[in-house]
């Protein structure tokens, strides 16, 4: 099904002088798509040419439309010699391929050259006519929407969240091809940029196909990454969450899906590996790969939580046939597979009715491998589904098992989302992660990227089994990353094990009745903290208490997650950024020896990072981490670990105990004095932090809670070695046993250093807060000023006396100083909060450490107490929550007799009104951009999924750009700092220009995924690769929204003006 791409070259401006003699340029433009090229006339002797070309028309396949970028080259005509290239513009036309996004791309684009940077601008208009509109979803994946945002996009509603999609494509890296020896750096860079652009187009199309197969229409939380494997090639991989989204203004679209549930059943191909042998090492490499997790499966039970017994509701009979039927309709591939699932789901149903001891009995056997456990279950109980259904176990358990089996059908029940519709997340188990060290080998056949696929599949299996060990059937906030050094590669994956509510995972027919009851019984603000695993049979030693909020169910003493703080969570005080930083020296080695050395170091690093996080969390007086991201970076002679998370005090979790210091030689008087001095300092810090973050939980009488009184325990020491009780070498006990107070034993200088480093972390200056999640718990009165920034630092370590301590200190100082610099630079924005602080560490060379930070500073209103502001805040909150409801409400819910009470925080509670205060009409014309009277329209950029004080009215498409910049005159360009500063500024400019050309005025969920910087000062050279992505959107200020409704005609013509059009 072909399409017609139309391109018009309007004009250029600020072109560079290409002819020294006349100080002018004779510019013309080549427009290339696929293999077709058009040229404009030469516009002689001008730096501001007006080509005003005809429409160049390309008739192409939609497959090409998806894969290929439009390539515009500006050249200087030269009569006698070859024409000189001025620069290029690559335009991704994907946003034009689905109807709801942009309809035209029109605006000024910076002309970019990989050697000279931006050289002037060009005004281009691009349109696409897709033929056969009706049929266009059939053959290619045109029409599947992509979002980088890791939550359901603001103006959509999730009908179904289908699940994990992944894909990877590989190719040879042009930089390493033989031809690179004879071509210019420019040609090489351009080949690379073009290839990556092509590959990401292809990847996106393939992912789109998978989504269509699942009957979805969108990918949310789309994360695409490049692995520059050097000699062995170039890998582009992506993960995301397939969803069926529904635009909020058209609620009717939901109904068809509802009426045809049988179709939906095919949503997932039954491609589950029948024998997922998780613990076997990858066959492709000789290397023994080690994978392990935070929350290892010490002993696990398939028994879904027994703590739900209070929830015994008599189920209606109607849903029963439904449940199994969903899984009974397998897609054609294998009937046997389908029946297996049938059995399994039945089994699970019946299992819930078995006495708990039964499951604990089988569990030790189950530990060996996942596949085995399933077979065992099948053998153990071959009953039909009918009986199970009639038995009618606890309703919620049933519900969960439905979900569970629904999820287990999927190869990987993973979700890249970090924020969820209310009620989606039932319980959170904890962080699961897996890493694996691989040796890179040349990819021989790019069309068959089996090795890389197998590597990732392995890791994902590992994650899946860890989640199971935690009694969870799904993993949320899932992400993957790599770190490459020479031929060694560390693959990492992490996420949060969770139990999900099935209503978003399948079609909606069952929900009407289920949901209602469920929600009535879900305790507000603490449900997700309740343990999903069996209390009597815990996967790891943890100290459980009754939930401080509802007092009915058990909660752990600390909770680590990779997701954002759920909106309904009850938090006391404010949160703060917590980082653990760690370096480990490693001997230089080759290939396998190197990989082995790294594998051996990894567990210790994970352990120490975890310990540091725990200590710092306690020091802050908090009990939960959100948005946890642990990055392990491999270099020639060291490994770096950096964990960032946002610490909060969850009201549902117990008050954290303090940190106690124990000396090793208790007889020494002066030593003891020193110890007690340290102890005092720590206690003071904790007290100070509690005050700083306003943590003052209500006092609770002891007997209700159980036994949080610290018992003096002999074994409450930090376990510095691997847990001996763990029989798998790769498993670590990171939970530190059951203890209330944390005891740090100072037995050597190392430990002393650790304690010192704990205390050296300086809190941000007053008026500043920081977090790495979307929003800061405890602050909600944001004002509209935002400043997104990227900061990069590289330090050179003195090669002398490199010890682990010195390294740690250097690294710690680097990060701390960087943060201090940020606070200083942004001091004019006080009071403000640094949100979504994202640190990336890389080790470009032997003694170089590079840290890249991207974050956004948002101002907020300090005077919450003032009545006026309060009213305003409440109003906006109310509006926000109304929006939420609109986003998430199901039509079915609307017609149900009783309104479900949503677990909103008290402040938002007053939002029962279903009809938005702003009518539908208002929603349509939000494209009005606050284009001030400046000549260039302002484009905001933020790593968050929202813009404070504004409403996103339209998503225009994904921005995914890759740039290379190289210089052979580093000194002249201001050294490395000048070079990189200019390049990053240029990247921002190009992102903004593309967004403006799409008619947008902001980029949300912006992320700089890669910033690879290489220098060779001796040769006066440097090269940098940057990969960024985000969602182009149109937003309107809330204050303007009211105005817009009265000025509809005016608003309609607005978008055209936002395209960076010059008004003078």
């Amino acid at each position, binding site marked *: 099904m072909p399409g017609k791409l139309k391109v018009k070259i309007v004009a250029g*401006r*600020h072109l560079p002088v290409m002819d020294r003699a006349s100080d002018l340029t004779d510019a013309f433009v080549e427009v290339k798509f696929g293999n077709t090229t058009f040229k404009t006339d030469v516009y002689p002797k001008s730096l501001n040419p007006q080509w005003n070309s005809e429409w160049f028309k390309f008739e192409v396949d939609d497959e090409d439309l998806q894969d290929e970028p439009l390539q515009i080259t500006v050249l200087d005509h030269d009569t006698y010699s070859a024409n000189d290239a001025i620069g290029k513009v690559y335009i991704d036309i994907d946003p034009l391929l689905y109807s709801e996004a942009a309809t035209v791309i029109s605006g*000024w684009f*910076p002309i970019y050259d990989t050697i000279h940077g*931006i050289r002037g*601008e060009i005004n281009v208009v691009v349109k696409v006519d897709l033929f056969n509109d009706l049929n266009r979803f059939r053959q290619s994946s045109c029409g599947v929407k992509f979002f980088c945002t890791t939550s359901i996009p603001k103006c959509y509603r999730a009908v179904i969240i289908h699940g994990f999609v992944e894909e990877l494509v590989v190719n040879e890296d042009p930089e390493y091809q033989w031809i690179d020896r004879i071509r210019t750096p420019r040609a090489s860079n351009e080949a690379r940029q073009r290839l990556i652009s092509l590959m990401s187009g292809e990847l996106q199309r393939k992912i789109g196909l998978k989504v269509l197969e699942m009957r979805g229409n969108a990918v949310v939380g789309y994360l695409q990454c490049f692995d520059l494997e050097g000699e062995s090639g170039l890998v582009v991989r992506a993960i995301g969450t397939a969803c069926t989204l529904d635009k909020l203004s058209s609620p009717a679209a939901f109904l068809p899906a509802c009426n045809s549930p049988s179709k939906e059943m095919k949503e997932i191909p039954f491609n589950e590996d029948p024998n997922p042998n998780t613990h076997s090492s990858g066959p492709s490499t000789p290397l023994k790969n080690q994978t392990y997790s935070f929350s290892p499966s010490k002993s696990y039970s398939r028994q879904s939580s027994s703590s739900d017994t209070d929830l015994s509701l008599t189920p209606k009979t109607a849903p029963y046939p439904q449940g199994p039927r969903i899984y009974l309709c397998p897609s054609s591939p294998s009937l046997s597979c389908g029946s297996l699932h049938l059995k399994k789901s039945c089994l699970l149903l019946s299992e819930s009715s078995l006495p708990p001891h039964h499951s604990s009995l089988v569990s030790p056997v189950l530990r060996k491998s996942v596949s085995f456990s399933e077979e065992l279950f099948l053998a153990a109980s071959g009953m039909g589904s009918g009986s199970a259904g009639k038995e009618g176990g606890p309703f919620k358990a049933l519900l969960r098992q439905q979900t569970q089996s629904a999820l287990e059908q999927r190869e990987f029940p993973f979700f890249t989302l970090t924020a969820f519709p209310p009620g989606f997340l039932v319980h959170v188990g904890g962080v699961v992660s897996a890493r694996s060290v691989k040796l890179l080998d040349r990819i021989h056949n790019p069309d068959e990227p089996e090795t890389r696929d197998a590597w990732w599949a392995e890791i994902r299996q590992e994650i899946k089994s860890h989640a199971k060990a935690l009694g969870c059937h799904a993993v949320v906030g899932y992400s993957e990353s790599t770190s490459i050094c020479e031929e060694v590669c560390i693959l990492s994956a992490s996420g949060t094990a969770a139990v999900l509510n099935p209503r978003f995972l399948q079609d909606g027919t069952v929900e009407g009745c289920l949901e209602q009851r469920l929600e009535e019984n879900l305790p507000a603000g603490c449900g997700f903290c309740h343990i999903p695993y069996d209390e009597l049979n815990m996967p790891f030693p943890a100290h459980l208490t009754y939930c401080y909020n509802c007092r009915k169910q058990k909660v752990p003493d600390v909770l680590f997650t990779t997701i954002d703080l759920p909106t309904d969570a009850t938090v006391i005080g404010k949160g703060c950024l917590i980082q653990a930083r760690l370096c480990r020296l490693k001997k230089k080695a080759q290939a396998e020896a190197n990989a082995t050395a790294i594998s051996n170091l990894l567990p210790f690093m994970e352990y120490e990072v975890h310990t540091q996080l725990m200590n710092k969390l306690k020091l802050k007086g908090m009990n939960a981490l959100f948005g946890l991201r642990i990055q392990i970076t491999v270099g020639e002679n060291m490994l770096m670990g950096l964990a960032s998370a946002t610490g909060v005090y969850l009201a549902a979790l117990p008050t954290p105990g303090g940190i106690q210091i124990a000396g090793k030689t208790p007889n020494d008087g002066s030593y003891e004095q020193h110890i007690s001095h340290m102890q005092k300092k720590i206690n003071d810090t904790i007290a100070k932090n509690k005050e700083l973050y306003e943590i003052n939980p209500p006092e609770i009488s002891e007997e209700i809670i159980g036994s949080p009184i610290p018992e003096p325990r002999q074994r409450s020491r930090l376990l510095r070695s691997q847990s001996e009780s763990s029989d798998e070498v790769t498993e670590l006990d990171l939970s530190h046993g059951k203890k209330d107070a944390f005891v740090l034993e100072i037995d050597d200088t190392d430990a002393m250093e650790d304690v010192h480093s704990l205390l050296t972390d300086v809190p941000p*200056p007053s008026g500043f807060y920081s977090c790495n999640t979307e929003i800061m718990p405890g602050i909600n009165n944001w004002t509209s000023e935002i*400043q*997104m*920034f*990227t*900061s*990069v*630092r*590289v*330090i*050179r*370590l*003195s090669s002398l006396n490199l010890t682990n301590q010195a390294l740690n200190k*250097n690294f710690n*100082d*680097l990060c701390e*100083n960087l943060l*201090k*610099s*940020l*606070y*200083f*630079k942004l*001091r004019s924005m006080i009071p403000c909060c640094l949100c979504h602080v994202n640190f990336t560490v890389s080790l470009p060379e032997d003694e*170089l450490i*590079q840290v890249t930070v991207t974050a956004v500073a948002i101002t907020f209103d300090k005077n919450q107490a003032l009545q006026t502001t309060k009213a305003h805040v409440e109003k906006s909150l109310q509006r926000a929550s109304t929006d939420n409801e609109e986003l998430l409400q199901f039509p079915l819910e609307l017609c149900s007799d009783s309104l479900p009470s949503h677990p909103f925080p008290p402040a938002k509670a007053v939002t029962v009104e279903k009809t938005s205060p702003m009518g539908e009409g208002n929603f349509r014309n939000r494209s009005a951009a606050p284009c*001030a*009277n*400046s*000549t*260039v329209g*302002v*484009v*905001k*950029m933020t790593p968050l999924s929202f813009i404070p004080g504004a409403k996103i009215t339209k998503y225009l498409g994904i921005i995914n750009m890759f740039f290379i910049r190289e210089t052979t005159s580093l000194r002249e360009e*201001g050294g*490395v*700092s*000048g070079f*990189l*500063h*200019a390049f*990053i*500024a*240029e990247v*921002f*400019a190009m992102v*903004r*220009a593309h967004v403006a050309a799409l008619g947008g005025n902001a980029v949300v969920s912006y992320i700089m995924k890669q910033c690879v*910087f290489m220098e060779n000062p001796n040769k006066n050279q440097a090269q940098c690769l940057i990969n960024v992505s985000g969602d182009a959107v149109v937003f309107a200020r809330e204050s303007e929204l009211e105005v817009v409704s009265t000025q509809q005609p005016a608003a309609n013509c607005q978008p055209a003006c936002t395209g*960076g059009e*010059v008004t*003078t």
Partner: protein
Amino acid sequence: MTSELDIFVGNTTLIDEDVYRLWLDGYSVGDAVALRVRSGILEQTGATAAVLQSDTMDHYRTFHMLERLLHAPPKLLHQLIYQIPPSRQALLIERYYAFDEAFVREVLGKKLSKGTKKDLDDISTKTGITLKSCRRQFDNFKRVFKVVEEMRGSLVDNIQQHFLLSDRLARDYAAIVFFANNRFETGKKKLQYLSFGDFAFCAELMIQNWTLGAVDSQVDDMDMDLDKEFLQDLKELKVLVADKDLLDLHKSLVCTALRGKLGVFSEMEANFKNLSRGLVNVATKLTHNKDVRDLFVDLVEKFVEPCRSDHWPLSDVRLFLNQYSASVHSLDGFRNLPKAVRPHLAAPPPLPQRVSPCGHQRGCHKT
């Protein structure tokens, strides 16, 4: 541990006004950091010297990158690389083109050539302004001069349009360009007491009344070059001092009008012939380039200094000059002035800001 690379790039380019000022003043990063430390910023913010150093470096780098765009301010508005709010853009431009009084007095009326640029070291030493800052200011003058040199239309408008300066600053630049173009001598010791403002005031009136633009608004260089025809016509004023009768008549007219109004009436009466001769001589010599250049020197010597030695108050000088030029109109032979001179006469009499020769000068020429 040394920092190899240290950058901060905001989506909105951060501009620190204080650092910008230090940069414009030509301080090195080190000096700027020292000055900032002295300002007490560390105590206010709790930052460390290293943080300040990094911050200063970063701002300096940003300014350095912006400088290229500041050379053609409209580019700053249209460029896409740095997102800067319009108010900040205006501030950047205005501050960049601002200049030091001390510096401008040194180069005012000098040819904006390489030769002068070489002398900037001396000016720097003399004025205490850093050489870097001197260079920037000098280059600004030269750049503005080059751009508007051959343009049609009002000088001030051209400058405003091409450099987006405020009205006030554009007028100052017009004066600088006008002085540089006509190479008026302003550096003599005798003229040292005059401020740039004084000269700028004169320049404005001269542009209004003495240039081609005053007659015809559609000529090249209209506000830059003096109207040759007009200067030629001024020769005819010679009769005011050459013709004894006319001189006496003129004197009597002035004296009658001013009797009782001037505190220095007797001195004026006694000196009238000398003063008139001085003024007229200055005017009639203006056909020679050399004398044009010395205009201000001559005026001070021939008119200002005599007045000053008699302790004329400013108001008296003003009254006298007004009357001096007004009376001429009632003299025979001056009723039918050449056409070219008319517009000059039509202008209102200038009011000197201080005892400045410029004001007077205009008065006399009008006559």
